[in-house]
C-alpha cells in the first residue's frame, strides 16, 4: 500500500518534470524558430495582404513576387555562386593550414613553440577592428616585403579580389582562425601517443603519419572546423564589406539590400517607396540568403552535433 503510494509520488514527480522540460524546450524552440517562420510567411504573402487585418500568419493571396524581386535585385544566382565558391575555397584552405598548425603545436614541439602558441591566443584575443586599418592599407598597396615592386614596378591592389581571403586563409589567419587552431591542437593532444609511435616504428615519416594516421582520426575536429568556417565566412559582413566593396557576395549584397531596394523598387524615387513593402522584400532577401545554409545544416547537423561532442574543445 505504502509502497505503491510512494511509487505513484515518484511517478508524479517524473511526469511533472518531463512536462516542465517539454514546456521549456518547446517554448525556447519556438523563440528560435519564430523569426524564420515569420520570414517564410512574409515571403509568400502578396503585397495586398500586407495591410489586411485578417492576415497574420497564413496569407490570403499567395505570390512568388517577392522572390522574383529579390532574385533580380540581389542578382541572386551569381551572388550565390560567388559566395559559395568564396566560402568553399577559404574553408578548405583554412582547414588545411589550421590542421597543420594545430598538429605542429600539439605534437611536434620545438624551441619556442609555446611562445608561438601564445601568439595564437593573442590573435583570438585582439579584436579584429584593432588591426583592420593597417591590413586594409597593406592590401591596398600589397608589396610582399618589397618583392612585387621589384618584379612589376608597382605594388598591386588586392582589394576587391578574393586574394585577401585566400592569403589569410592559406596562412591560417582568416576569420576566427585562432579558434580553429585551438580546436585542432586540443583534439590532436587527445589522440594517444602510442598510435603515433607505432606508426614511426613501422617506418612512417612524420608527414605520412600525419596524413595516414592522425588526420583520419581527427574527422570530428575537421567537420567542426569546416562547418564553422564555412558558415562564418558565409555570414561574415565585417571583412567582406571591407575587402570586397563591389564584388557580389551574399553578405555585401544583404547589407546593401535596403538601399538597392529603395532605389529599384519604386522607379528610382526612394522617398515614394512604401517602407513596409521594402521591409517585406528585405525579409525575403534574408530568407533566401540563409536558405542554402539551412539546407546544408539539415544534412550535416547530425555529424555536427556528434562531432562537437568528441572534439577536443573540452580539453
Amino acid at each position, binding site marked *: 500500500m505504502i509502497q505503491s503510494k510512494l511509487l505513484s509520488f515518484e511517478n508524479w514527480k517524473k511526469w511533472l518534470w*518531463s512536462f516542465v522540460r517539454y514546456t521549456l*524546450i518547446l517554448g*525556447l524552440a519556438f*523563440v*528560435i*524558430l519564430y*523569426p*524564420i517562420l*515569420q520570414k517564410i510567411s*512574409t515571403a509568400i504573402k502578396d503585397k495586398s495582404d500586407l495591410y489586411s487585418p485578417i492576415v497574420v500568419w497564413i496569407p490570403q493571396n499567395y505570390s512568388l513576387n517577392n522572390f522574383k524581386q529579390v532574385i533580380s535585385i540581389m542578382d541572386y544566382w551569381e551572388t550565390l555562386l560567388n559566395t559559395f565558391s568564396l566560402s568553399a575555397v577559404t574553408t578548405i584552405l583554412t582547414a588545411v593550414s*589550421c590542421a*597543420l598548425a594545430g598538429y*605542429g603545436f600539439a*605534437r*611536434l614541439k*620545438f624551441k619556442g*613553440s609555446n611562445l*608561438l602558441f601564445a*601568439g*595564437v591566443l593573442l*590573435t583570438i*584575443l585582439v*579584436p*579584429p577592428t*584593432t*588591426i583592420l*586599418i*593597417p591590413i*586594409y*592599407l*597593406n592590401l591596398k598597396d600589397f608589396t610582399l616585403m618589397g618583392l612585387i615592386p621589384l618584379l612589376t614596378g608597382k605594388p598591386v591592389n588586392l582589394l576587391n579580389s578574393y586574394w585577401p581571403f585566400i592569403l589569410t586563409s*592559406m*596562412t*591560417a*589567419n582568416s576569420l576566427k582562425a585562432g579558434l580553429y*587552431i585551438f580546436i585542432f591542437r586540443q583534439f590532436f593532444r587527445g589522440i594517444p601517443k602510442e598510435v603515433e609511435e607505432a606508426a*614511426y616504428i613501422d617506418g612512417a615519416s*612524420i608527414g605520412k603519419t*600525419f596524413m595516414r594516421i592522425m588526420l583520419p582520426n581527427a574527422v570530428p575536429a575537421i567537420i567542426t572546423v569546416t562547418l*564553422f568556417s564555412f*558558415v562564418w565566412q558565409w*555570414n*561574415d*559582413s*565585417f571583412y567582406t564589406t571591407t575587402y570586397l566593396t563591389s564584388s557580389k557576395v551574399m*553578405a555585401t549584397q544583404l547589407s546593401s539590400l535596403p538601399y538597392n531596394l529603395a532605389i529599384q523598387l519604386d522607379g528610382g524615387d526612394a522617398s515614394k517607396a512604401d517602407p513596409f513593402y521594402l*521591409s*517585406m522584400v528585405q*525579409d525575403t532577401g*534574408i530568407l533566401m540568403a540563409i536558405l542554402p545554409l*539551412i539546407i546544408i*545544416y539539415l544534412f550535416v*547537423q*547530425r555529424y555536427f*552535433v556528434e562531432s562537437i*561532442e*568528441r*572534439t577536443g*574543445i*573540452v580539453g
Partner: protein
Amino acid sequence: MRKGLKLGITRTYAQQKAFWGFLYVLPWLLGFIFFFLIPLISSLRYSLSTITANAQGMTIEFIGLKNYIEALTVNTSFNRTLTESIVNMVVNVPLIVIFSLFLAVLLNQKFFGRSVARAIFFLPVILASGVILSLESTSLIQAVNDQNAGGSGAINAFSSFELQRLMLEAGFSESIVLYLTGAVDRIYEIVSLSGVQILIFLAGIQTISPQLYEASKMEGATGYEAFWKITFPMVSPLILVNVVYTIIDSFSRNALTDLIRETGFTKFNFGLSSAMAWIYFLCIAVILAISTFLISRKVFYHE
C-alpha cells in the same frame, strides 16, 4: 631519418620532429607576422600619429597621445558607445553562460525528440552571425506584425510586467528584479547568442563519467544535489572558457565596432580610429583579466 642522411646531417628523432614541427607551423607563422603582428604594430603607430594622404602616398607624423585624448574628451559619441558596449557585455555574459549551462544540462537528458531539439538549439550558431543579425533588428515587418497581431509583443510585455510586480512584492531587491525581467524580454537575443556555448557545455557534460552519478545515486543524492556536487564542478573549467568566448564573441557585433569603422573609412581619420580601437582593446583586456582571475580561483581541475 633518411632525409637527414641524404643531406649529410644526422638528426636525432627529437630534432627531426622539431624541424617538421616548425615546418607545419610555418604557414601560420608567416600569416601571423604579415597579417597580425605588423598590422598590430602599425596600428599602434597610427594611433600615436596623424596621417595625411598626399601625392606621395601618406605622411605619418608623430603627435603623441593626442588621438587618445581626442577620443576620450572631444569625440561626442565615443565615451557613450564605449560604456554602453561594455555595460551590455557585462550584463549579457552571466546570463548567456548560466542559460547555456542550464540548456546543456537539459539537452543532455534523455527524452523523446532530443535530437530534433538539439538540432534546433544549434541553429543560432548558423543564423545569428554577421549581417543577418544586424538586419533583423531593423525589420519593420516584425514590428508591424507584433502590432497587428496584438499578440506576442503585448503578451510578452504583460507577462514580464506581471513577473516584475510579483517579484517586487515578494521582496526581491529592485535591481535584481529589473535584471531578470530584462533577461526575459531579451530572450531571443540571449538564445541566439548562446549556440556555441551550449555546444561546449554539452560536450563537457558528456565527458563526465557516468560512474560518478551512479555512485552518488547509491548514496541517495537527488538530481539537484548531483548537479551542484558533480556536474557543476566538473564543467567549471568550461565556464571559464565560455566566459572568455562570450566576451570575445561580443566584439564582432556592437556599436563601437561600427563607430571605429566609420571613423576610419568614411571620415578617413585613421589615427583617431586606431586610437579608439586600442582603447577598446585595452578595456577588453582588463575585463578579460579580471574575469579570468575571479573565475579561475573557483575552477576545479582534475589534477
